[in-house]
């Protein structure tokens, strides 16, 4: 039995090894991915992002406990940054997840970004596919502590949680632009701390500015009420989703059941509106884009004559060629 078949059978050691091979983008990993791919597409991918120290890992821990009580099998992919200088990393998210030890229905894997800048590692998407094929109902993906532009998670996950905490900077500067827009559910963790009202107020006003939410929200309720005879009429307004704001205290579990309900409602919304399939298509599309870029780059590097790259680069150093001219020269001059 090969690695992929063992993964499909539920062998945890094979799963761990396959994840390593996929992370290292080895030939074995690629072969395993190809074999398991038909078995993917079932899991609910939930992204958890937010600034460092907002409690993402603790929240993931609590959510996993909740999903386990619902009988779901839960995989966790926790991403932490690699050092830009040495490539090394300290992956410390498991420290907050000790409640999950000893449960065969949970599988936690830490991974380093290995140079990726979008809050995830390059292999994260592929690794979620391995979990999916291994039969995990839910995969929680915890990003690196994210600031403003680490929004890759929204392209990968079905449901993205953006985690905030009271007292982080003045009026949530950190999440103003990019990251707030990707939230499907906003979480104010550490809600037992002073300043939680201000944080919630700030988030609410941001939402009202960023989304056409107020209007849609009011209509949304009516539209749902008008939905007759169980028919899914899916009118335009039903396609809108207002990111709810949920207060939690991850260390004692306050608000977790409510948060899980929001997540379930969002999944339901995605399916009803057709966005589930749309996100799936977009995700596979961007995955193919990335792979194509890699493959083209590899092919180019294999085909360009030895030393040609360096000699052209030297001309750029001397300012006798611009980078653009150099690239054109390399592409046109490559050997077939």
């Amino acid at each position, binding site marked *: 039995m090969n690695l992929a078949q063992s993964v499909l059978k539920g062998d945890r050691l094979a799963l*761990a090894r396959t994840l390593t091979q996929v992370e290292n*983008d080895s030939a074995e990993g690629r072969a395993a991915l190809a074999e398991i791919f038909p078995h993917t597409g079932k899991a609910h991918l939930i992204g958890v992002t937010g600034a460092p120290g907002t409690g993402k890992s603790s929240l993931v821990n609590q959510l996993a406990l909740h999903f386990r009580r619902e009988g779901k099998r839960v995989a966790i992919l926790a991403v932490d940054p690699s050092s830009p200088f040495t490539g*090394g990393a300290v*992956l410390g998210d498991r*420290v907050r997840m000790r409640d999950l030890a000893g449960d065969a229905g949970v599988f936690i894997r*830490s991974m380093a970004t290995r*140079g990726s800048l979008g809050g995830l590692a*390059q292999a994260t998407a592929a690794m979620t596919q391995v979990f999916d094929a291994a039969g995990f109902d839910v995969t929680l993906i915890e990003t690196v502590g994210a600031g403003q532009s680490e929004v890759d998670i929204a392209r990968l996950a079905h449901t993205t949680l953006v985690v905030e905490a009271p007292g982080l900077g003045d009026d949530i500067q950190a999440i103003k632009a990019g990251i707030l827009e990707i939230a499907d559910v906003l979480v104010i963790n550490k809600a037992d701390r002073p300043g939680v009202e201000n944080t919630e107020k700030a988030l609410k006003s941001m939402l009202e500015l960023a989304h056409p939410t107020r209007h849609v929200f009011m209509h949304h309720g009516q539209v749902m009420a008008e939905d007759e005879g169980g028919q899914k009429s899916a009118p335009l307004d039903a396609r809108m989703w207002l990111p709810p704001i949920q207060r939690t205290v991850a260390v004692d579990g306050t608000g977790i059941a409510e948060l899980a309900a929001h997540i379930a409602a969002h999944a339901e919304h995605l399916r009803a509106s057709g966005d589930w399939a749309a996100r799936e298509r977009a995700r596979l599309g961007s995955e193919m884009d990335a792979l194509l870029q*890699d493959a083209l780059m590899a092919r180019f590097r294999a085909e360009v004559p030895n030393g040609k790259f360096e000699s052209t680069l030297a001309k750029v150093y001397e300012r006798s060629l611009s980078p653009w001219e150099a690239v054109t020269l390399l592409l046109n001059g490559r050997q077939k």
Partner: protein
Amino acid sequence: MTEKKTGPEQGRRIRVLVAKPGLDGHDRGAKVVARALRDAGMEVIYTGLRQTPEMIAEAALQEDVDVVGLSILSGAHMALAPRILELLKANGQGHVKVFLGGIVPDEDSPRLKEMGITGIYGPGASTEDIIREVRESVKG
């Protein structure tokens, strides 16, 4: 053509689980070692305090590590270390190299090595030695 590899093509990195089994709460040494291994370019998974042997073996499996580093300052190493080695083997991870740091009397060292502990480091051990020996252990 430059040899510089990007992205996942940089390939395999040494993955190390740094764990503190047992009940002592002194993790300064474990953190210093974790940091040193990180600076040597390894990926270090840190699990925190008061781990049972079962928790450590499970984490080693899920993370598919090459090396487990145990930090024990409680004197319970003769009970904890063999149990962890046993569990790793039972999980099919007999190939994982296990290092031990902390307060280990000299007379215990030979027996621990016999059990399968790859290296033992006491107070004053240099991180350079640890890094070098960890690297060498996963080569073969």
